[in-house]
């Protein structure tokens, strides 16, 4: 009985890991292709349906296997860089912050991971005042929330200008550039 339970447990454990990664690889591969094989699509849909059960998701979360393994894959993405300009009551610039006053290397790693959510702002083609989808609305709300937090840390601050840039690399460091993808001024 014991070996059977062991085998079942191991199968379930690796089944979850393999499923998560297969699904991720499937989407990574067919992202740029027009045709998806019908049989594979059906398998993916059935798997997604099974994986919706909370118990499996909680298990995957607790065992650290709810995310697929694809660090820097399929390509290394460009980073999104934030800038916060804090103005006082007389509209004069008091500080410019590249990040929210982070002091540690590890915090910066987490922050760089966090700024990937601003990718949705790239699609903001017309730079209009209204977001065109939920992801954009979410990213904007996060940017406002950060600006508000930084502004409230100093009672003399009345306005925060938040800018988000996409860092793009070229063939040499001299050509590297920051492209503005989002900019708003928040009155506190």
């Amino acid at each position, binding site marked *: 009985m014991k070996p059977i339970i*062991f085998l079942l447990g191991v199968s379930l*454990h*690796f089944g979850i*890991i*393999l499923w998560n*990664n297969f699904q*991720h*690889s499937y989407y*990574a591969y067919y992202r740029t292709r027009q045709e998806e094989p019908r049989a594979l699509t059906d398998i993916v849909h059935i798997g997604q349906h099974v994986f919706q059960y*909370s118990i499996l*998701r*909680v298990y995957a*979360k*607790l*065992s*650290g*296997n*709810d*995310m*697929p*393994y*694809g*660090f*820097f*894959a*399929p*390509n*290394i993405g*460009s*980073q999104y*860089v934030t800038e916060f300009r804090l103005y006082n009551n007389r509209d004069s610039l008091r500080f410019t912050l590249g990040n*929210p*006053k*982070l*002091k*540690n*290397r*590890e*915090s*910066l*790693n*987490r*922050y*760089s*991971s*966090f*700024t990937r*959510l601003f990718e949705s702002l790239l699609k903001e083609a017309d730079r209009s005042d209204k977001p065109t989808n939920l992801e954009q609305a*979410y990213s904007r*709300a*996060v940017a406002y*929330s*950060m600006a508000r*937090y930084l502004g409230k840390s100093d009672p003399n601050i009345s306005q925060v200008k938040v800018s988000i840039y996409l*860092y793009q*690399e070229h*063939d*040499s*460091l001299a050509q*590297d550039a920051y492209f503005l993808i989002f900019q708003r001024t928040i009155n506190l």
Partner: protein
Amino acid sequence: MIVSSFKKLPLRQLDFLFPLRVGTACLAGLAYYTLGDDFKLFYTFDGLVDYTLLDIKKDTLLPGIQAIEKTIDNKHFYQGLSFTYYSLAGLLAIGFATPLVACILLLLHACIFTAVPLFSYGFDYFCQIGLFYCLLFPTYRSYSVDKYLWKLIPASTPTLYRCQRILQIHLSIVYFFNGLNKAFGSSWWNGQALWKALHLPYFNSAQWDVGFLPHWLLSAGGILVLLLEIAYPLNLLLRRLQEPFIGSIIILHLLISIFLGLSLFSLAMILLNYCAWFHQTRKHINPNYQLPKVCRE
């Protein structure tokens, strides 16, 4: 060479459970410690991003630490949390009430670092995997307080073999899929990936200018990474490959730590590789082996 020098260390007499338990406990402690004051920026209810927004991205039944803070509503919550977290990491390292401590630390780690995934990255998940295996494997049977208190015998050879095999298979899946997903993109083939990795603004405060390197060298570096990762599962089958292979993987992680500043992530991967492939237990079991008297009783 690296592998051989590791094998000469006196640690050779140990099984892999001891370094797994102590290393994971240290990593968990470091995850908290290295954030310092910035911890409150990321993981408090009144932090950098409003918790209502963070909560939208939460995808499981586990509560985020911010939600727990709001429920308890005590001004000393974070002092208490630090004390509890470090104490649990310390108790896991010495192996006191190991399964219980590993379980609580696992839940706490998940609530802090991975329940709300916006601020988490690869390291948090590998630390969680380490904690999960500390709970699952009989880590309390190897140089622990539990072992001396309850007079436990060391884990049997078949058990050690099975546990280490699970870790080896898991790492093989990790590297294989990571390599496969990289192979789908063009940048790992044409050298652009290494160029980009060395220039990302948040990872490289020094900005390594590698413009003097020939283009083919960057391409070769990218392809070498792909090969190392995709061929990693071969270690399961070919014992002779293990020394050069795992040595190369460890060098790769050291380079990631130096050039990208992802020190904790590299440390976690080196630890898991060390536990999976060093102190290997042989499958062959001595037919004359007899269980110690305590166990037979």
